[in-house]
């Protein structure tokens, strides 16, 4: 009798669940019989389109005119990444309301967008995430006719970016580097501008950094740094190279893996050397009593270069307002306002005239030599190896 009750209950649950999953169960069943390759984008997690075949990487280009608005703007952005006054300016100029919500990582944003029905129009994903979003059909191709300001971008940013070679999906927003912030009150001036400062025990000890180092709590960034120190590409998919990098991270004289407070911990003296994103350090250093006590650099072996981009969500309720907003941000003056507000480098060539000279001339913000910098690219199935190796390295 008891088991019968249980069966009834589980049958109820199962039938309800079937009803709930029904929507996307039909389709994978079709996939199954057709025996399509797993990488086929129609297999995206919560494909909500139901009847139509899932978004092809080259989905429909929205038909929009320049400055056309088709409703209020819903922006999903990184926190503290845009001057609120710019949003107000957009509101008054186009007579729409802007609602901005913020996220803390690409990884938290992507599933929300991918599931569908997010309600957002524009998102600001980083480089590798753009390629993932494209592969999943999560973002729409841009209608360049509605974005005349696209030509304000420096030529390197209009095309040739590895994650979106034709610039079909993403409009670069800002870019920066990942490197090391150093408290020179401890290390002195003449430490090597090298990853050896964190990965080589002797060097770290010599400059008083051993045991006071924080590395980013991010598999790709931190293993990537180790790969760079070893002279490999940070996108290497060689098992041996990854193992070497893993051993290096595991044995480095590190205090913490920290993605959230590394700049503050450096400023309060908890750490001496911190691995992190350029702009965060600059904001932090500017707050210090003596900014010259600190230095940010990208080690000589090279490091990560990243670009954040604006993209239109696949089911954006207001795709034309989205295009108008992208066009608005790519405006020369507005692009300069972004950079003058948060100290990240601008991809907007036309904006340079209005960017504060001290930012434009700072080699830490606009590095002279970018030949040794690499973008993190999505390595597909190999991402799991990175993630596992990092957990092992952390111990």
């Amino acid at each position, binding site marked *: 009798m*008891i088991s019968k*009750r*249980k069966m*009834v*209950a*589980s049958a109820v649950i199962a039938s309800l669940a079937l*009803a*709930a*999953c*029904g*929507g*996307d169960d039909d389709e994978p069943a079709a996939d199954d019989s057709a025996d399509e390759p797993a990488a086929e984008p129609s297999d995206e*997690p*919560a494909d*909500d389109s*139901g009847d139509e075949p899932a978004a092809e990487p080259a989905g429909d280009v929205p038909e929009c005119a320049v400055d056309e608005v088709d409703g209020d703007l*819903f922006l*999903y952005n*990184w*926190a*503290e*990444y845009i001057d609120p006054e710019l949003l107000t300016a957009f509101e008054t100029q186009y007579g729409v309301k802007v*609602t*901005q*919500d*913020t*996220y*803390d*990582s690409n990884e*938290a944003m992507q*599933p*929300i967008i991918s*599931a*569908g*029905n*997010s*309600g*957002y129009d524009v998102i600001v994903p980083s480089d590798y995430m753009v390629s993932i979003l494209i592969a999943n059909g999560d973002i729409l191709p841009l209608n360049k006719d509605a974005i005349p300001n696209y030509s304000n971008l420096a030529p390197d940013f209009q095309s040739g970016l590895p994650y979106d070679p034709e610039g079909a999906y993403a409009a670069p927003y800002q870019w920066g580097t990942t490197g090391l912030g150093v408290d020179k009150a401890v290390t002195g001036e003449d430490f090597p501008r090298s990853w050896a400062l964190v990965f080589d025990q002797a060097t770290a000890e010599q400059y008083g950094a051993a045991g006071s180092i924080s590395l980013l709590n991010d598999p790709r960034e931190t293993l990537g740094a180790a790969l760079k120190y070893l002279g490999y590409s940070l996108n290497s998919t060689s098992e041996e190279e990854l193992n070497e990098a893993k051993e290096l991270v595991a044995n480095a004289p590190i205090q913490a893996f920290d*993605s*959230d*407070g590394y*700049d*503050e911990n450096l*400023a*309060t003296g908890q750490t001496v050397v911190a691995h992190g*994103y350029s702009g*965060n350090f600059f*904001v*932090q250093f500017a*707050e210090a009593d003596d900014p010259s006590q600190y230095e940010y650099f990208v080690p000589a072996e090279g490091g990560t270069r990243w670009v954040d981009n604006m993209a239109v969500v696949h089911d954006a309720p207001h795709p034309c307002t989205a295009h108008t907003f992208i066009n608005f941000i790519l405006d020369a003056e507005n692009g300069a306002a972004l950079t003058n507000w948060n100290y990240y480098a601008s991809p907007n060539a036309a904006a340079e005239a209005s960017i504060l000279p001290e930012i434009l001339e700072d080699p830490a913000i606009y590095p002279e030599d970018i030949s040794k910098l690499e973008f993190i690219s999505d390595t597909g199935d190999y991402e799991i190896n990175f993630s596992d190796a990092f957990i092992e390295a952390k111990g």
Partner: protein
Amino acid sequence: MSEASSAQARGLAKWGLNLNVVLVLVFLYAPIVLLTIYSFSGARNPGQWGGFTLDWYRALGDDTRVQDAIWVSVKVALVSTVVSVVLGTMAALALERFTFRGKKVFDALLYLPIIIPDVTMAVMMLLFFTQAFDLLDDWFGLRIAKGFATIVVSHIAFNIAFVSVVVRARIAGMDATLEQAAADLYATRWRAFVHVTLPQIMPGVLGGALLALTLSLDDVVVTQFVAGPGSTTLPVYVFSLIRKGVTPLINAVSVVMLAASLVLVIGSLFAQRANEGRRRREPAA
């Protein structure tokens, strides 16, 4: 054991108990005191003292984003607490006092929200809502968007479990004879419940409510995944700042919420005290 040493032991136990209370309160409030102090700090880092200032409180007064987020949080917390306390208490009574079809399944189901990792619940609610809304759209042409309602629904889903565990800890082993006597006395079960059972389980219900309120006010991951545009709660907003640095503005928010809840609590305690006094006088009158 002699009388004297027994009294001594009892005195020692009493002393230890008092000391423990003091230490627990110090432990609980040390970080709170610290975060309150730093809400008056002029430095942008929560960990550096930058001279006394009220700037963060002024900034809070101007920051409509944070104010909106606070309101969403408070509303979500109140609604989800009320609903989950009612449902959770009913569930606890049913499980402790009755036997019925599917009881074991229900019992197990009620533990799952406590056991499930945050992020797993977040992912599953995200998938559930988007797929359910698609179905509603396909079948009935209903267009529903994620937002306030989906946050409340998700919070209730985990809060019911926490409320019922606390209430059950109260009911378990509680003497049922009084309730039976009351049932005979009061004719209707409802009156018996209101006059006898409810007062008896009240501490459990109150504890469950406090827990539910706290969990709801603190939840980040589930809320982030089920929220819609413009329905960000305070914790989700604060969490998004984690990479760019959380400023003392958030300390100021915490202090304001602390002060508000203190006022509420002290007010209700006074009310309770007045009540107590009245009751004490009544038998004499």
